[in-house]
């Protein structure tokens, strides 16, 4: 029997297994989790011949190196980065065959933050509540990869996509996040709401899978006191006591006690996942659809 497994030779700064997450359990305190850039994850799955919900690897800034024990088709997408197989340059954003025992190197991101690596058959770790995603807030799913981790692979579902090139969004030089105000914009001064939607912010290096943290003008509260804990959504712009807005990403807590001044449109969150620290951020108020 062929050994369908993947050996992690270099885990990189933070590489996790991700899929479409585990929605539907927020009432038990379970974050949704899942790929921060779901479009990129779906694209590499399609290129590798996998269904869209197959588990992929999500790297952070400096890629990873992997050695499959059987011949597989892989696809690397998301943040643009050099790809080599057995030391020779290979395609990014296209199906690539990696022979059994050859080394696949996913290099440092030339732009953006998170590269996605799909392997034919998908990463077949045991699912937890229907998902194989690593949830860094609650610790559900497989631990982040370490050097030497061996990951089981599933059976390939179909042939790789036959494509020459695929369109992909470039990681943003400036991150424009469309927001609808509320639900707790009345907890802030009119000036704070104006500051949020007109002044310049930057992506903070303290950002992670839980939230995109920002640096910029502190938003002033119109009322003091504590907000009783309430349910939180993906894209919520929560304002902690330091006044700097935090945009909730996939591993966000399900409830929280800091007021949410606005919510980012879901379509703008993949770009947020690819914005490197220091990227200028603009929040633009839009009307609710």
């Amino acid at each position: 029997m062929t050994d369908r497994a993947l050996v992690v030779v270099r885990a990189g700064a933070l590489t996790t297994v991700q899929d479409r997450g585990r929605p539907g359990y927020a009432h038990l305190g379970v974050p949704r989790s899942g790929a921060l850039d779901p479009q990129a994850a779906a694209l590499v799955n399609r290129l590798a011949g996998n269904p869209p919900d197959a588990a992929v690897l999500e790297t952070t800034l400096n890629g990873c190196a992997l050695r499959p024990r059987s011949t597989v088709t892989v696809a690397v997408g998301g943040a643009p980065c050099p790809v080599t197989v057995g030391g020779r340059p290979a395609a990014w954003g296209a199906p690539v065959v990696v022979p059994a025992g050859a080394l696949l190197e996913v290099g440092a991101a030339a732009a953006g933050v998170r590269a996605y690596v799909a392997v034919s058959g998908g990463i077949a770790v045991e699912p937890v509540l229907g998902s194989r995603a690593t949830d860094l807030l609650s610790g559900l799913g497989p631990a982040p990869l370490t050097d030497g981790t061996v990951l089981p692979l599933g059976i390939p579902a179909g042939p790789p996509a036959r494509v020459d090139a695929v369109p992909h969004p470039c990681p943003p030089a400036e991150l424009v996040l469309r927001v609808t105000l509320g639900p707790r914009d009345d907890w802030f001064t009119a000036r704070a709401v104006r500051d949020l939607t007109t002044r310049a912010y930057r992506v903070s290096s303290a950002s992670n899978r839980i939230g995109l943290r920002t640096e910029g003008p502190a938003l002033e509260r119109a009322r003091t006191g504590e907000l009783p804990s309430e349910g939180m959504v993906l894209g919520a712009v929560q304002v902690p006591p330091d006044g700097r807005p935090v945009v909730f990403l996939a591993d966000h807590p399900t409830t929280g006690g800091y007021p949410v001044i606005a919510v980012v449109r879901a379509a703008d969150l993949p770009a947020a996942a690819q914005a490197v620290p220091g990227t200028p951020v603009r929040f633009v108020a839009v009307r609710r659809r």
Partner: protein
Amino acid sequence: MRAFPVGDDALLVEVASGEQAQALHAELLRRRAEGSLAVREIVPAARTVLLDGLADPVRWASELTSSEVPPAPPRARELIELPVRYDGPDLAEVAAHWKVSEHEVARIHAGTEFTVAFCGFAPGFGYLTGLPARYDVPRRATPRTAVPAGAVALAGPYTGVYPRSSPGGWQLIGTAEAVLWDHARVPAALLSPGARVRFVPVGDA
């Protein structure tokens, strides 16, 4: 009852009390079960219920706010009993807040029937209500970096049991042996919103 659209596909419904939030939560679950409410998540909290993944939040906002807060739901049938040793390191501090002896803290706490008002903080962590307001306690001024799994703790109006070891600022009064969260079990969470809970003292306490 007030309702705030949250982004394009969620609605936060706010009521006046925790009891009303529990009643509203039960009513929304009933509507989902009968098929009249299509929504991905129904997340109760202290004074609110969040409907996330909702096709038409504005229509639901007007529908919900034009009706009365529903009556309290019938009590859950099953009572979950959690064996507990009242041996927490903050027992004396809680006794001082309550102006009773440590033994009395255990007696009052074990004599209370709790309801899981909502979950959050960690998978399977329930916020349990039931103690009268005079027994509210503040959080610890300095949170602990590690609270052990099974710790029975108080903060504000709530009792909680830590499903796994984690940092925490609640006052620890005891230890429960029960496994609060096991993702290999069905259901994974021992305590889910609406459940009735009683703590049963074991050992010398």
